[in-house]
């Protein structure tokens, strides 16, 4: 088993006061049919987690929006880019700590997806997030292509989140991708 880490990925186990786990079957139905569930699930975890914030927390609404945005982006990515032939569940886990929420999303990817992801991560992790955002948008407008990583750039730029990835090669062809987002409260 071989593991490669990128960005702000840390192995430490969260010391959670509250946690929540959800599992999804990305290959059971066509992507189009399950797309709406990404938003529904994101709104649910956002409502669930912000329930535990102190009622007088000054940024309650901002945190609720951030949690919904991040959860939705993670689920959208996982549904689009998982290895559908593997028939393996996508799991989203949230840990609420005293001063941050940690999102952990695990999905299986193919060898080709792994190569594309590594190209993206090498660019993304070496640039300032705002510079990356501008660079991607200008490139996208020029080439009329689908830009990648805008969701992660937004998490870092707009919500001060840290983002990290861990790719684990198991027995061929099993490759598991763990994406972690740390949202400060």
């Amino acid at each position, binding site marked *: 088993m071989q593991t490669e880490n990128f960005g702000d990925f840390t192995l430490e186990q969260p010391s959670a006061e509250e946690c929540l786990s959800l599992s999804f079957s990305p290959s059971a139905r066509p*992507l*189009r049919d399950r*797309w*709406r569930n*990404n*938003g529904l699930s994101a709104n649910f975890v956002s409502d669930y987690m912000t329930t535990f914030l102190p009622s007088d927390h000054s940024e309650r*609404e*901002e945190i609720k*929006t*951030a949690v*919904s*945005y991040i959860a*939705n*982006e993670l689920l*959208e990515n996982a549904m*689009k880019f998982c290895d559908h032939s593997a028939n393996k569940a996508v799991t989203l886990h949230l840990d609420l700590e005293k001063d941050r929420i940690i999102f952990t999303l695990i999905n299986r990817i193919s060898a080709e997806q792994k190569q594309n992801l590594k190209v993206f991560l090498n660019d993304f992790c070496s640039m300032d997030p*705002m510079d990356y*955002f*501008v660079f991607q*948008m*200008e490139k*996208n*407008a020029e080439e009329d292509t*689908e*830009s990648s990583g*805008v*969701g992660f750039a*937004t998490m870092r*730029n*707009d*919500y001060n989140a840290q983002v990290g990835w861990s790719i684990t090669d198991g027995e061929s062809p099993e490759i598991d991708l763990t994406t972690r987002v740390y949202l400060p409260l």
Partner: protein
Amino acid sequence: MTNIQGDGYSVCEEGNGIAINGALRLNSMDEYKTIQDVLIEFATKNNNQIEIDLTRLQLLNSSGITMLSKFVIHCRKSEIKVIMKWDQNISWQGKSLKNLQRLMPSLELIS
């Protein structure tokens, strides 16, 4: 009159511009192209200016942010004047819309 009614969102022609309302989380740039085309068509017909009312747009995913970014870059290159109305109570808007000004410095944001 332009009017798109989708699942949880709408895009409507209103006065001097277009209002985008609801929660917009479409799944690709292909799906967003219809909305982008509506914005470009309106601006072109309206003497190269457009007001986009986002004050009732509660949620927007990253593909939606990409669509708005592509639109403002198009407007910068085509010298189209763009005004975006936003709501300070919708927290994503203040952050994400200011990023668009990096792509189009003349973009006017009104809250």
